[in-house]
């Protein structure tokens, strides 16, 4: 194949052709008069702090970062291609595997996108159940983020505390749908499983158990001078850059923009609940930390309201056994814990989609890494990657 003849990894600058980044030709305007030898350093795919298999090529001037390039694709499994060869019902379990930390929200986005294509709406009870599980999933995802982020910065104990809370959530998932991680909780048209006996009680017990724990984590980290020194002013992203790069989720909100799809384009039954959108002031790592902690508190608020107001009724809409949506395309996005998770499905009238495109939040957020780490020290790169909250399963699909 002619266009791949030149192996771009060994190409000289300018030789790669259109669309190829010459990583050795990064912006070098920040060099000082005392030009020390620049170092091209590889934070390789196997790395304790890159949250998966991510390769980050850093161009360093001593300790300062001049530029970065991310090399991804180590976890590419061809999920979108698989989607073109499975029926809509069959593809449901595959979406859990993309953002494997928060599988429930992936399923939610997919089911809603297909329901939009079919022009059906899940019944109210199913919507409430979906909201409860999605908010629990948000807390679970943020707990993984908190634990691993603290671990990267050096505080080794919050990881275990966070995973203990996550255990409680995964237990609820197991009781509800039969699996802890790859939940396959929802079906197109509603939910398959009715809530088990004690579902409401379990959720309430979890909420009561969890809020004091959140206060404990704040006591451990928020005012800790070492934590503040490591995260304040590190990785600042201003709102204009956020919008230009397409960054969404807590990263966007910490920069100051109050944009959350649950309020801006309400889906499911979110308009029935009363909750707030936390925003930050400076767009640095500390603000992102505070925003996510507050989001967990608001998630508990939503869960309590949803569990109290769970309506009676059917849990599955009238959807045919063999799903053949009309010809057309749909883009539907939800506020996943990491940002805007979008599904663009093109249907050609058959049982299998023509194109199943996923817009993963981590993939788009990762592009902001370059902008955030210019001028920072090497130790901060790790903190910034942690604060973006990327999951490589989503980035690579």
């Amino acid at each position, binding site marked *: 194949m002619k266009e791949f003849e030149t192996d771009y990894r060994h190409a000289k600058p300018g030789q790669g052709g259109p669309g190829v980044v010459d990583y050795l030709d990064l912006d070098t305007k920040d060099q000082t008069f005392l030009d020390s030898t620049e170092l091209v350093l590889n934070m390789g795919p196997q790395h304790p702090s890159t949250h998966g298999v991510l390769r980050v090529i850093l161009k360093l001037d001593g300790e300062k970062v001049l530029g970065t390039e991310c090399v991804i694709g180590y976890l590419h499994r061809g999920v979108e291609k698989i989607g073109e060869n*499975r029926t809509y*019902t*069959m*593809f*449901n*379990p*595959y979406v859990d595997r993309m953002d494997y930390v928060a599988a429930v929200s992936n399923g939610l986005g997919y089911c809603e996108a297909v329901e939009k294509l079919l022009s059906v709406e899940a019944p109210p009870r199913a919507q409430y159940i979906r909201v409860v599980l999605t908010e629990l999933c948000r807390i679970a995802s943020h707990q993984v983020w908190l634990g691993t982020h603290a671990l990267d910065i050096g505080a080794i*104990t919050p990881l275990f*505390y966070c995973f*203990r809370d996550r*255990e409680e959530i995964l*237990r609820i998932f*197991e*009781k*509800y*749908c*039969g*699996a802890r991680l*790859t939940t*396959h909780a929802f079906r197109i048209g509603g939910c*398959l*499983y009715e809530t*088990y006996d004690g579902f409401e009680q379990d959720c309430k017990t979890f909420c009561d158990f969890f809020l004091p724990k959140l206060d*404990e984590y704040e*006591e*451990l*980290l928020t*005012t*800790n*001078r*070492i934590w503040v020194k490591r995260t304040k002013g590190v990785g600042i992203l201003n709102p204009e850059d956020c919008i230009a790069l397409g960054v969404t989720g807590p990263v966007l909100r910490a920069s100051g923009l109050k944009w959350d799809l649950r309020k801006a384009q309400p889906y499911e039954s979110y308009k029935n609940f009363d909750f707030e959108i936390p925003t930050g002031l400076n767009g640095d790592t500390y603000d992102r930390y505070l925003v996510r902690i507050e989001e967990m508190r608001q998630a508990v608020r939503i869960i309590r309201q949803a569990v109290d107001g769970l309506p009676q009724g059917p849990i599955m809409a009238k959807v045919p056994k063999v799903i053949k949506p009309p010809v057309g395309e749909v883009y539907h996005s939800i506020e996943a814990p990491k940002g805007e998770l979008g599904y663009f499905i093109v249907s050609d009238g058959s049982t299998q989609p023509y194109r199943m495109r996923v817009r993963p939040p981590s993939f788009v957020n990762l592009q902001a890494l370059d902008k955030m780490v210019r001028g920072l020290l090497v130790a901060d790169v790790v903190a910034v990657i942690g604060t973006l909250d990327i999951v490589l399963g989503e980035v690579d699909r």
Partner: protein
Amino acid sequence: MSLKPLLRKILLVDLIKGLKVTFHYQPPSEAITEQYPLERPVIYERFRGQPRLNSNPDTGESLCIVCNLCALACPEQLIVVKGERNPATKRKEVVTWTYDLSRCMFCGLCAEACSTDALELTQDYEMALYSREGMILDQAALERGQEPTRYAK
């Protein structure tokens, strides 16, 4: 800086608060580790684990009527069912029933599709084997279920 924050900074109050939290969790009663082979986890009813072919408890014959719905529902197409019609009872009976456990993702679509409650995903999760060939289960293995070696009797 006013007095109170200054005092907090000098007397390292924030660091001591953090130390209190970790001190609090020290007693072994707070440890949440399950020492696995000794203490097995509680598995809930809806858990999607090892598949099993159920039989009629009274007559002992398999509940499977070879409708092939499970094979059609599986996203990985790893179920292969072959049956032939029994002229006496006018029902299909299983000849070979194969389930490839190595490619299964335990999504549960097959058990959902089964029309007679024959195929069920049980709560067993200890499915480790020494060979790949052993992961392809036939009808006898599926009806028997698992027999893992017990570490502690």
